């Protein structure tokens, strides 16, 4: 099932009343009262629908919050018995809390039956505190009501110092603790964040196992994920010094990536969310790379992203140019590689030059002594005829073949191959195209910000040329720490935390691994 959250309307009255009567058997509201609630301009009612069930509506909740009033109330919340334990109640509460803050309330109140410890626990975990008891409030049962209250942060999205404002507010709500799982390629990554604070970033790589094959072998990577996933979770918990019971939500990469590898993370994340009874967020790997910039490698509080921004993501599996207007709701793919990823080209050229895998660092090292102008290798998709259709797309297959031809011609003639010059010239070709297209995207869109991500950011020449060209063009360049640029679970957790902060409902349990998930699908329902 994949639950859908939406505003309730008068048409939902019958469905809501059916749940109301079975949930609150002795003190259900009348249909007239409920109809008035749904109709009021001062209320905000949500329903959760699940098409796979005979009665589509499986939960509802309501808020009373006149705009401009300082105090708001949770009016009611109910989840049908068969849908409990899936995080719907928590997700509904989070949404109502966010709406109360949006309407300008500074305090949110609710009443809960004294004989319902499960609900009290949920509310406490959402930072509600018990402030009073109303004796025998619930009739005819004669059960006491606990009055609970929580402070609301000033309206969210108020700029870069939101964090400090929330931190200093009395009884400030804490961001949820999110554990992120990433298994899209050859790194098993588990990260733990609270908001934009990085608490753990543990990566177990199967790179060494791929070395003898000269590239990532999907089945080898997937087998390694299965063996690494549990130890990596343990290591992340130890690094963050938290226990699994402390985790408030789980995030996982649903795609894009290697299907068999992704499935290990998806299976593990679903089990973790169910075993802990926590909400699960299935997210996009590439958008996660952008989210990495929210974090600081030293674990100090990160900062909001400066948006909009252009993002250039370059790794062994991807070469993508994105326009990010909003991390959780608006990411556009400007272009991507039409053949090999840049990192893949580095690996293949390294093999041609007799250098080991992975090729990126090897080429970088060899190129240090070489002349980048020694050989003019082609720049893919930069000719005027290509630019009309492929302005922001990349192609690295041609340069890879050109290098191989050049080297073979030397070898056939019995001449030595100047490895340093070839490496430097090849690297210059790749890095030239990457940075030129990224800077062009910034200028074309009038966006003076460029963010780099992906493992190829480790390439010193890429960083240097990006810095030079951004400086000349008046573009602010951001490069996250390398430990956050390579594939990792912390960036997935960070994206999950932003989805929660923005009030997005959790993903259902029905998503799978999507090897070609488009970048516009930031979260998978």
């Amino acid at each position, binding site marked *: 099932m994949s639950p859908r959250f939406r505003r309730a309307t008068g048409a939902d009255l019958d469905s809501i009343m059916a749940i109301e009567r079975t949930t609150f058997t002795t003190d259900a509201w009348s249909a007239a009262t409920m109809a008035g609630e749904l109709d009021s301009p001062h209320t905000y009612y949500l329903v959760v629908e699940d098409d796979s069930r005979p009665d589509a509506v499986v939960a509802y909740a309501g808020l009373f919050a006149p705009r401009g009033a300082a105090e708001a109330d949770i009016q009611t919340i109910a989840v049908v018995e068969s849908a409990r334990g899936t995080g719907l109640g928590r997700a509904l509460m989070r949404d109502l809390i966010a709406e109360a803050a949006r309407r300008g309330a500074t305090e949110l109140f609710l009443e809960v039956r004294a004989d319902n410890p499960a609900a009290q626990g949920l509310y406490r975990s959402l930072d509600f505190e018990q402030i009073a008891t109303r004796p025998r409030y619930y009739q005819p049962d004669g059960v006491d009501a606990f009055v609970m209250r929580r402070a609301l942060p000033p309206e969210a999205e108020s700029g870069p110092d939101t964090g400090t404002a929330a931190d200093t507010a009395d009884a400030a709500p804490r961001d949820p603790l999110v554990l992120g799982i990433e298994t899209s390629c050859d790194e098993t990554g588990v990260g733990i964040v609270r908001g934009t604070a990085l608490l753990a970033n543990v990566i177990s790589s199967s790179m060494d196992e791929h070395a003898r094959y000269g590239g990532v072998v999907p089945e080898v990577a997937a087998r390694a994920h*299965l063996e690494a996933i549990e130890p990596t979770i343990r290591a992340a918990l130890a690094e963050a010094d938290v226990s699994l019971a402390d985790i408030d939500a789980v995030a996982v990469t649903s795609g894009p990536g290697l299907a068999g590898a992704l499935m290990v993370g998806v299976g593990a994340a679903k089990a973790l969310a169910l075993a802990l009874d926590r909400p699960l967020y299935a997210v996009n790997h590439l958008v996660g790379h952008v989210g990495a910039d929210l974090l600081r490698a030293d674990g100090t509080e990160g900062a909001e992203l400066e948006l909009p921004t252009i993002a250039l993501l370059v790794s062994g599996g991807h070469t993508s140019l994105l326009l990010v207007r909003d991390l959780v709701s608006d990411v556009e793919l400007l272009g991507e590689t039409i053949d090999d990823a840049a990192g893949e080209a580095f690996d293949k050229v390294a093999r041609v030059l007799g250098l080991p895998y992975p090729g990126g660092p090897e080429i970088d090292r060899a190129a240090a002594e070489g002349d980048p102008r020694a050989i003019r290798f082609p720049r893919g998709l930069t000719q005027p005829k290509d630019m009309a259709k492929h302005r922001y797309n990349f192609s690295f297959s041609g340069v890879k073949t050109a290098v191989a031809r050049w080297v073979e011609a030397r070898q056939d003639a019995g001449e030595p191959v100047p490895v340093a010059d070839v490496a430097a010239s090849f690297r210059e070709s790749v890095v030239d195209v990457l940075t030129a297209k990224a800077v062009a995207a910034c200028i074309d869109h009038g966006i003076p910000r460029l963010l780099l991500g992906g493992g190829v950011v480790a390439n010193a020449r890429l960083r240097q040329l990006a810095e030079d060209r951004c400086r000349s063009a008046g573009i602010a360049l951001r490069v996250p720490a390398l430990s956050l640029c390579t594939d990792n679970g912390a960036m997935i957790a960070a994206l999950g935390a932003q989805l929660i902060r923005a009030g997005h409902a959790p993903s259902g349990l029905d998503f799978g691994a999507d090897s070609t998930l488009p970048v516009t699908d930031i979260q998978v329902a």
Partner: protein
Amino acid sequence: MLLAIDTSAGTSVAVVDGATGIAVERSVDDTMRHAEVIGALVRDCLEQAGVRPADLDGVVAGMGPGPFTGLRVGIAAARVFALARGIPLLPVVSSAAVAFEHYAAVAPNAAGNGAGRLLVVTDARRRELYWSLFDAPGESGIPTLVDGPGLATPADVPHAGEGTQRIDAARVSGVALGRLAERMRAAGADFPADHALYLRSPDVTPAAGPKRVTA
């Protein structure tokens, strides 16, 4: 009370408890949707059984043999569920659950033994089969694995004849897997190693060096 997960064929999840007689199973036979269905099956089993995760005291993982992409989903889920609850993982050979179910269903004859030897055969894809040979169980009800599990082409599956009954199983029951694990635990039997039974090496050969691009 055990949660049992097997993705060696389709996906089968069960909650079993010998003490209370709980035996709830939810399965999807589709062999291509393990990652999609595993979460809902676990949730539905727990709900149907009226069991919270905290009520469980072990997670049974069907370790195969099975086609690897799907097999991993169930093992990963079982390992992480056990980790999250702080309860033991009980690895069981998936084909043993098929044998257990078979022997439990046949009435013992006058000689006291339910049946003779059983060859459990499952699909390994790529026109190959997994096979495992079991001896009928004694008092414990636990079938004894006497040969395999192995991988063979259909013509080369061993132990044909020999008075052996053969079952070609298209599904592995979560309830059978869970009940077998309960028996094994009660009898103090050794559980197999927590290793996925792929029975195949990854399909790759080490790089032979770069291929020429010029003729």
